């Protein structure tokens, strides 16, 4: 019985990894300049002229960004869903991403006035403060309102307020550097350098490992706070760990890619359905890989469909993810009714 089960999980992992590799290669080859797959491999071995530069310095970091940030966003979503015991909780819905975005925009503009260009760590710190601030407001409200749906609506409103303020600042800021900020505030995996990737991969891997190590307490928490406590879980410590990890991962994505909507809700749902399990030990790595696949696919569509024009990543993930959210809510409603 357990062997059959393990076999099923291995097949699921193979599917995810295969999808990741195929989409990664397609992402490298497709774009405003079409490059054949054989040229992609040539670029890896250090051959090929101009196209090699496009592959190794532009498209490859972007593929890594989509993989790492998409994965982080999905795991953050899974942690938040565990925390709020609600399948439609996620960094974007709860306004955490927008809070991070607002703080990054404010910091960038403030520093630009003094002619200082913000570096990776500055961005992450600002984004982390922003996501913690949004999370703090949500937690304060969750102490007052017991209804999850109202809490989520509050989160969406916080998101709107932060986005509006960010748009306001970006529109009125007078600096040519703001052009970058404008693209970033729409959401995109473009313009990420290898130096950024180094920072991103270290933080994502640390967060991923920490989340994975929390598998056991997460599984207890899935039965509800009371049962988790009765089984020996220190709820206070565990909740702080969940908040810090999910905020850090959401902040990281907001800092480098801007807002990326619905990935945090859609991917955990899809992966749990694929594995037919919600055991954290099994699904956390799957959710990370699934997030990578989802974002690579979304980024491919964003770049290719109207090439050379590029769509914002958030519009693509919204079209792919929002119907899934509606589906989840209808399913919940059916169960309740």
């Amino acid at each position, binding site marked *: *019985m357990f062997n059959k089960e393990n076999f099923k999980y291995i097949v699921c992992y193979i599917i995810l990894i295969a999808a990741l590799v195929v989409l990664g290669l397609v992402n490298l080859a497709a774009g405003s300049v079409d490059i054949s797959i054989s040229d992609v491999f040539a670029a890896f071995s250090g051959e090929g002229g101009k196209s090699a530069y496009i592959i190794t310095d532009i498209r490859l970091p972007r593929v890594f960004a989509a993989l790492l940030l998409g994965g982080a966003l999905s795991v953050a979503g899974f942690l938040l869903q565990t925390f709020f*015991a609600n*399948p439609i909780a996620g960094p974007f819905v709860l306004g955490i991403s927008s809070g991070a975005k607002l703080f990054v925009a404010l910091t960038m503009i403030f520093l630009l006035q003094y002619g200082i260009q913000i570096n990776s760590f500055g961005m992450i710190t600002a984004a982390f403060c922003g996501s913690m601030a949004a999370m703090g407001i949500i937690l304060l409200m969750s102490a007052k309102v017991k209804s999850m749906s109202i809490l989520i609506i509050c989160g969406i409103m916080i998101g709107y307020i932060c986005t509006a303020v960010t748009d306001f600042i970006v529109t009125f800021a007078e600096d040519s550097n703001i052009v970058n900020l404008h693209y970033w505030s729409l959401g995109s995996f473009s313009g990420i350098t290898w130096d950024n990737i180094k920072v991103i991969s270290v933080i994502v891997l640390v967060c991923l490992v920490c989340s994975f*190590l929390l*598998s*056991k307490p997460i*599984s*207890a928490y*899935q*039965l*509800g706070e*009371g*049962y988790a*406590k*009765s*089984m*020996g*879980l*220190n*709820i206070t410590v565990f909740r702080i760990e969940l908040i810090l990890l999910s905020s850090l991962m959401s902040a990281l994505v907001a800092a480098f890619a801007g807002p990326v909507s619905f990935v945090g809700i859609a991917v955990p749902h899809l992966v*749990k*359905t694929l*594995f*037919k*399990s*919600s*055991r954290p*030990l099994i699904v956390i790595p799957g959710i990370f890989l699934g997030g990578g696949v989802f974002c690579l696919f979304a980024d491919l569509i964003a770049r290719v469909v109207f090439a050379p024009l590029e769509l914002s990543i958030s519009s693509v993930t919204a079209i792919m993810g929002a119907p899934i959210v509606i589906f989840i809510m209808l399913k919940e409603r059916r*169960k309740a009714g």
Partner: protein
Amino acid sequence: MGQDKIALRTDKLSVGYEKNIIVKEMNLSVKAGSVTSIIGPNGAGKSTFLKTLAGYIEPLGGMVYLDDASLFGMSDHARSLKMSVLMTDKVKVEWMKVFDIASMGRYPYTGSMGVLSEEDIKKTSEVIELVGLSALKERYFNELSDGQKQRVMFARAIIQEPKILVLDEPSSFLDMKYKLEMLSIIRKLSREDGVTVIMTLHELEMARQISDMLICIKDGCIECCGTPEEVFAGDHILKLYEIDRDSEFLPEFLR
């Protein structure tokens, strides 16, 4: 088995939420290996009292002692090795099988990643067999009926191998057959394994049959406490629930 050993004791325990005291200054001693039921009218504070005994909510005054150790002074892990619970909280999980949920009872015993050992699997399977869930073991929990879910959570509590088992309305959602089976299991745990059982019950007839001690709670006080014979003597139960003796549908055992 040391019949007179005290498994759980409360000292001037006051329970409630925030500043509202629901049950005041209770002194209670529960013998190891006994079955104790808490009865009383709706809203008397039975559940709140039980939740405090289980460590779910902090007492507003006084203390609960397990084997002379303060319940709220010990770590969550230390408590989980002594006591397990079945509460009325709804468990909402997706894509979790009956076996997975029941085996969560092994939580205090598994390693840091929660991987089940051979022994954990054996123990889980034994209890699943005991509560008659073998046929449902591979089913998803959220597809079960409320009664089946209740039995899974009951199994989970036993799988935790507690010295004290705390049950809040354990018989709710169960049909007659499983109510009776649950009583036999509770009796077996107490007599053979020396487990101390403390529960709230609505069914007075069941409480009378199964319990070594009954605690009647009314208007925030322990109104009376004693063996079923003592508690069911005379008009006592009728007074506790404020029932008329001439009530048309008064059950046989209260006449």
